[in-house]
Every structure is written in structure tokens, then in C-alpha cells.
């Protein structure tokens, strides 16, 4: 059964408060090379059929909020 990996990211123009905090923590640990951190989400769907239009629909309706987030996805495993 194929999996769909959906990646959801906050739009680049928006401040990621949590990401900024993680970036500061990395610097505190001595990783001075870290310029910026952005936190996104990985959502894995197991589906019995892969239909691109339906995946896009699921992403824009629920998995991502198009007002604040961008999404990409990839299909892993056998495409039915």
C-alpha cells in the first residue's frame, strides 16, 4: 500500500516563534553556525489509491491552512 508524505511548512514570510526558540537553544549548545530554524510538520497517509487532485484537496482543506502554510507531498511505495 502506498504512503503519501505530506510536508507542511509555515509560509517564509511568517515568524516561526517556536523555530526561533529552538534556534536559540542550538546556539546555547554551541552550534554557532545555525542562522535560523523553521519547524514544519510531516504527515504520513496510508492510502489504497493515489489520486493527486484528492491529495491536494485534503492538504488544502485540512492538513495545511493555505492562509499561513505551504505544503508539498511525495508518494512512497507502490503507486496503485
Amino acid at each position, binding site marked *: 500500500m502506498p504512503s503519501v508524505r505530506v510536508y507542511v511548512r509555515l509560509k517564509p514570510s*511568517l515568524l516561526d*516563534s517556536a523555530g526561533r526558540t529552538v534556534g536559540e537553544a542550538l546556539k546555547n549548545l554551541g552550534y554557532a553556525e545555525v542562522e535560523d530554524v523553521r519547524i514544519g510538520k510531516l504527515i504520513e497517509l496510508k492510502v489504497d489509491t493515489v489520486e493527486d487532485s484528492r491529495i491536494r484537496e485534503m492538504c488544502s482543506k*485540512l492538513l495545511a491552512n493555505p*492562509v499561513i502554510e505551504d505544503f508539498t507531498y511525495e508518494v512512497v511505495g507502490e503507486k496503485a
Partner: protein
Amino acid sequence: MKIAVVRFPGSNCDQDALKALTEDLGLEAEYVWHETASLSGYDGVFVPGGFSYGDYLRCGAMAAAATVMNEVRRFAAEGRPVLGACNGFQILCESGILPGALLQNVGRRFICDDVYLTPGTRRSPWTEQVDRTVTIPIAHGEGRYVIDADGLKALHDNDQVAFRYTNALGEPTPQSNPNGSVDNIAGVLNEKGNVLGLMPHPERCTKSILGGTDGLKVLAGYLALVGA
């Protein structure tokens, strides 16, 4: 007039809302479970605050997909009063009934405090009674209102900015913005003006024993909309 107070798993301001509406505003109000398919018999809706569905995915995202939201959408379109406070505001934005979205506070902290609010417009049923800067409590971790530049312009052009965070003099200063909301926006209206979403909690300040009654000026929008 009977108001439906919509309950989701994780709502926690539902009792405050029901008591404010019934005891302090003198309206009828009942709890309505989120699986309810019909809101016939009701005249308006209150979408309460809380942490619906544990804020899974995004605040308000799961609640926006609940069955009852089809009816809330219908009420919004028909010009009936709909108010969402705190998580209720997040739900109304997630469901597309109101423009914009709410993100984590800039300061990354949950803030529980009284704030000054000044109406962005008086030409709306929810703000026409708010004749001055009022004090209403906030309690949220994700209250940073965001909208793109075109959307922000449309909000101003259409008189949809209901409330802004200000100082006591009504000035929207950076210091008076608790969460980093764009343009100090604390609450917005839909285009018709019958739907209000705001992060502050008007239902928490409707009795002097609670520290103030300014919330009544906002909730009076129900009377203005249904009485008209």
C-alpha cells in the same frame, strides 16, 4: 431569542458563555454538541474558547471540520449573529468564515491578562455599544493574528477590524500589543458584520464580581442583530 453555545471536546469557556448570555444578557441559551446537524430553532451562535480537540494539527482545525460547522456557516451567510471568542475565533478563521489565521504569540508565552481594546469601527452590531476603550481579559498562547497585505487592506477598506489592542488612551502602540498581531488586531468581522471573532473573552467580564462588565457591550450585538 435563543443562542446555541457550541461544545466541542476540549471546549472550556462554554459555561462562562452560557451564564453570561442567560444571567447577564437575559437571553435564552443552550449547549449544542458538535455532532448536531441542525440548529433550527436557534437565532444565533456562540463558539466558545478552550482547546478543542487538544489543538491537534492547528488550533481550531479539527473543530472547523465538525458537522455543526455547516450550520454555523449557514447562520453566518444568513446574517444571523455568530460570535467566536479565543478558540472560537480560531475555529471561525480555520473554517473560512472569517479571514486570516492565528499563530503562536510572538513572546512564545501563554498570556492571561486584562487588555485594553478599542473598536476599529463603530458601524457594526458588535461594536456600536462600545463607546470607549474597554477592558476585557485575554488567555491564549496562539493569538497572533496574521493576514496577508491584500487581506489587511480589505479588512480596513470594508470596516472589518472590530477591535484593536491599545493603551488606555485608545492608541494602538507596540507596547499594548500582547501577542504580535498584525496592526494590533484583536478581533475581526465578516463582510456583513454579523460574525465577530476575537481573542479576548467578553463572556468573562459581564458581572462586577468578575472585575468588570465591559463584555456586555460586545455581547449586546446579539440583541442588535436579532432585535433588528
